């Protein structure tokens, strides 16, 4: 791995307290991901992959351990600093799309730019550009309930990319889609990766993981296996 590392994680743990019980979701994860890698994170439910995804996405902070994103230590940042990192460095794609139901596709894509302090005209320009990149230039003024599942996920991808983040972080991106639409979305991912985007996909589906170039498998809160593969 000669490319500079974008994510470096050392000894990452995350404990949850449920009453008197302590659940150790992550028990010391070490992971390095280089720029322009396409990584699938797999594992059975309860393996800690969602927790790892939340920590990597700066939505959650580790109980112990270090996390450097682009060389910056983010494991000790406060809420507002993390919000800024999420805004600039990370583009999220969720299983349930997580679009604002009352807002148009265009406005949904503009959201990250609003919090980045981009002017209204510039926002509009960049948001429509991002929608065009995922083939939705003629659906800009539709609301989520007027779009198909695949189209919604493409709006979410446009939203994830609009701020040109370091990482595209997708959590079960095809979990709510039929197989035809799923493969369309995975084609979009492949194209983005070819254009140089770093992508991390959390999934439990083998055929989704097969599209990635590297598969990291978690079990019981630690990395169980980590292998490179030729993309399907």
């Amino acid at each position: 791995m000669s490319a500079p590392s974008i994510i470096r994680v050392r000894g990452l743990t995350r404990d949850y307290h449920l009453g008197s019980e302590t659940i150790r979701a992550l028990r010391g994860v070490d992971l390095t991901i280089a720029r322009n890698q396409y990584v699938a994170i797999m594992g059975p439910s309860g393996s800690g992959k969602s927790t790892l995804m939340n920590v990597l996405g700066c939505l959650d902070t580790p109980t112990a351990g270090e996390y450097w994103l682009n060389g910056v230590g983010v494991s000790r940042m406060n809420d507002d600093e993390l919000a800024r990192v999420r805004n600039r460095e990370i583009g999220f794609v969720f299983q349930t799309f997580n679009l604002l139901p009352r807002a148009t596709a265009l406005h949904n894509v503009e959201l990250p730019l609003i919090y980045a302090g981009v002017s209204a005209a510039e926002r509009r320009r960049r948001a429509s550009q991002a929608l065009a990149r995922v083939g939705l230039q003629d659906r800009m003024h539709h609301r989520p309930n007027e779009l198909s599942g695949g189209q919604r996920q493409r709006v979410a991808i446009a939203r994830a990319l609009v701020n040109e983040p370091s990482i595209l972080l997708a959590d079960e991106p095809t979990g709510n889609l039929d197989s035809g639409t799923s493969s369309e979305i995975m084609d979009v991912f492949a194209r983005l990766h070819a254009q140089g985007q770093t992508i991390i996909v959390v999934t439990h589906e083998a055929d989704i993981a097969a599209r990635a170039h590297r598969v990291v498998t978690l079990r019981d809160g630690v990395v169980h296996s980590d292998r490179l593969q030729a993309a399907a």
Partner: protein
Amino acid sequence: MPFNEAIRLAIRVLWSQKMKSGFSLVGVFIGVTFLIAVVSIVEGMNRYMTDRFAGTFFGVNTFHLRRFPEFSEDVPAETWRQWRRRPRITEDDAQAVAASLSVPATIAWQSTARATVQYRGRIARDIEITGATDKYFEIKNYRIERGRTFTAQEVRAGATVIVLGNELAKRLFDDRDPIGREVKIRDILYRVIGVVEPQGNLFGISLDKFAVAPSTSPVKKFTNPPGLVDAVLIRTGSVPEMRLAMEQTEAIMRSRRGLRPNQDNNFALETSEGILDVWGKINRILLAALPGLVSISLVVGGIVIMNIMLMAVAERTREIGIRKALGARRRDIMRQFLVESATLAVVGALIGIATGILLAQTVASTTPLPASVAPWSILVGVLLGGGVGIAAGLYPASRAARLDPVEAMRHE
């Protein structure tokens, strides 16, 4: 998120839930409506009392010397009996005051009674007939529409001339010129020499149904016993001069009546200020009750808005989670909800202001009570609305801002 962005968003959200927004701003709306309407009516009364009543009806920098006050609050029966026993004011008193005041002053005296005025077949009953000296018109600020007032010479001669109030002239003469015609009061003919400009009304009572003749003319037979007057009117150039003239008048009257230092005045010096005091008391009671009434409805309005905002935060937990995931900081979320609740309250306040003004105008046009909307009350209304909105929004907004993005996005 920039401020204007937050306001646009707030208006969009509130507009998309018109019903709920409508109900939630009722409290603020009522409070502000009340504020504007009451303040407008009180202010209108105030202006009316000072301008029309004190300025026109009573006269500026003017005081009256009377047996007892013409305008007074409820006085106990005992005081009344005492007042009725006081000696009357005489023409000699008036002359003495006129002769010894050191400040420049215009002086007149008057006696008034009610009588019927006739012109050929036309009869006007229960008209206020005043016998006065020549300066009376100047002190009362009566401007003459047609003809002239009577002169000092006519007063000395006891001429049977008369000046009519506007409405009375219209009633007796319609469109004909009254000047030079003769009206009959108690079988005596008086020649009309002037008509006073319209004076409007006071509390809905016309101020234009009167007639003024020289105090020495035959009207003296029915206005007062010989040598007695109802009031001496003294007009000065300024407030300090008026104060000085009042002191001197008091001294003259006390000495003429041989009052010892420990005895109270047995006469009254009345100013428009004294009358305004009575009004001021009513005014203060109204304005003192106002903050209580307004704040009750605002507190209720605030609680309603707080509840609505808590509901909004609960309903939009997922949205908050998404926004935070996409980079919204605590203060962005805080601002979003604060602006929303402040907008809600300010919209309520604005509707309240509009309704309040409408209410005040309705009162003004359907009753003799005047109303004038005070600019400060509008400002206070908007500020109160915004303040209530922000205060009511603080707790819900900070709850929203502290939500954990992961938890919030899981929320259905």
